[in-house]
């Protein structure tokens, strides 16, 4: 048994965060909250990348984190813009109300 915080701890934490994020995406009604959960998922993945990068001694993981963060920011911006438009049309940003594109 190793002492201290090993890479396993980081991975488990990451998995827990990811699951929490997924659960939030699938369950919450408010679109902003869903976005926050998506951010949570993205960040958990970031954590995984960094932990493994340190563990394997390869810089690629950390470089990739930059990409992920950039994408997350852009995506959050676009998503919030969508939500504003949505609010203008429906007076609500509850995901349940966005159901017109059905059979």
């Amino acid at each position: 048994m190793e002492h201290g915080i090993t890479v396993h701890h980081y991975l488990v934490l990451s998995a827990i965060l990811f699951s929490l994020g997924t659960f939030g995406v699938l369950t919450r009604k408010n679109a902003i909250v869903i976005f926050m959960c998506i951010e949570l998922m993205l960040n958990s993945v970031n954590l995984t990348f960094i932990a493994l990068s340190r563990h394997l001694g390869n810089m690629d993981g950390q470089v990739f984190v930059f990409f992920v963060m950039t994408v997350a920011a852009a995506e959050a911006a676009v998503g919030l813009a969508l939500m504003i438009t949505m609010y203008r049309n429906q007076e609500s940003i509850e995901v349940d109300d966005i159901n017109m594109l059905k059979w």
Partner: protein
Amino acid sequence: MYDKLWLIPFFPLAGSVINGLLGKKIKSEKVIGTIATLAVAMSFLVSCSCFLSLLGDQVKVHQQVIASWMTVGTLNIEWGFLLDPLSAIMLMVVTGVGSLIHLYSIGYMHGEEGFYRFFCYLNLFVFAMLMLVLGNNALVMFIGWEGVGLCSYLLIGYYFHKQSAGDAAKKAFVVNRIGDFGFLLGLFLLFWTMGTEHGVWTFNFVEIAEKGHLLGAGGTVVTIVTLCFFLGATGKSAQIPLYTWLPDAMEGPTPVSALIHAATMVTAGVYMIGRLNGLFAMAPNTMMVVAIVGAATAIFAATIGFAQNDIKRVLAYSTVSQLGYMFLAMGVGAFTAGIFHLMTHAFFKACLFLGSGSVIHAMHHGLHHAHLHDDPQDMRNMGGLAKKMPITYWTFLISTLAISGFPLLSGFFSKDEILWWSFGSTRGAIGLWAIGAVAAGMTAFYMFRCVSLTFWGEQRTNPKAKDHIRESPLVITIPLMVLGFLALVGGWIGVPALLGDAFGGMANHFEHFLEPVFGHSQETYHIAIREALHHSAGLEWGMMGLSVLIAFIGIGIALYFYIWRPGLAAKFVNAFPQLHRVVFNKWYMDELYDTLFVNPVKRLGTFCWKGFDVKVIDGIVNGVPRLIGDFGKALRLVQSGFVHNYAMVMVVGTIMILAIYIL
């Protein structure tokens, strides 16, 4: 001259095409009629010159090949024509009688709406018949064979607005087709056997005549082949069992009945047997079948002729009966007599039909004038027309005398020849002679019944119409006169030896002319008058006298029933109502065929339609899309519009992939 053979079928074909394509634009009836009549008349002239060339020629068989049709290995099928005595005679009969009927039709079909269509089809018919008669191989003959069947359908159904005409046309075509099936089977069997067993691959008639003996006289193959061909002949020439179409075919205009159903198409079967006489001579069993069927048909049709009221029906059954005589002749080996009767029959029967057409035309005119709707073809509405229509009457009477076998007229010579051969041939039997003789008596009876009801006695036509009945115009009566004349004297070219000697050495020109065609097979297979009878002139005179006597008895009975004691016929009918009803209804043969064949086939057809085509095929064709549609309906429920559902599906999918990957 022989290189002009192709012109003979070409003229009517050209006439048909011109009239068919341009007929609607040519408004003048005279032009259309002239084109058509001239076409056939020119064929007649060429036929005559070919005949004359043939008379003086030592070589009696000439072939002309126009082009090659199919070449498969060593087999070469060509578009070729064959001129020999048999086809020369047929050519002249077809084109000669044909041109007279075309001329007649110009007058008869005057005012009809489809005038050009009629002449187009009539010319097409003559073309097909000429191909049949001239073909040098069985396939070209078959084209003509089918072609005449087609034109028969087109012409019988000429008045296509009438339901009965359309039905009659279909019936004729279907029954004919059954016969054609037999023809094809026989042809295939012949071709295949000759080819595989003897290495002779050919359809050519000359080669079949030369090499036919390879099949083995009296063998099963020859018998089956000839029986199949005979089936084809029964269809085309209206013998038992395939005769039912001919009486119904009277729905067509009268010139059609004269040309197709009296003079030409129905004789195709007889011609075919003549053409293949080598094969038939090798199959005595088939010949016996042919003779029996012929004799049976002759007497059977004669009985039906007794009770018909429609003048054309009487003549139709008379045609069936006389064709029976021709087949009787071919069956007992009297090939020459059969063809001779074919020729004389063409003369007098065409004259009879055209004469009846003249009567119907006049009756129609008269009844129309008086605004009555009586049937112009019903003999019960006629009577006493002899004075009103003298030319029609006299030609009709001459032809009736000819068909009854009145001495020295054309029918006498041919019919007597047939009866003598059925009695005395090596392939004959006395029973056949007896049936033939009785049928001759019956023929005389019902034909004179026809004459009596139509031309003699008092006029039974409605008084209002009576005076408007008059003789037909020249364009109708000239063909009548020509044909009547031929019926009167046409027999003299075939005077049998017995009478020829009696008249001071007259030869039987007809038999002599046809000797190259039939002589070989008759000699090889011993088909001739039996040795024992060769010198019994007395017996031959006796038989001749007997058949003349029977004819006179028939005529006498007819006169007794219809002229001396007019009410006797009605009393007879009342005394035997059942018998009359059966005979009047044609022995219920049509009804029998309906039950045995037509209705079961109809039911099968209806089942195939409703039970199979609608339920199974349409079921599959409609069911598959419906299935796909239902599947689609179920599938599209996935698109719920509910974003959380989509997210859930994504997550579940990812977990599944991971699970499969890890496990």
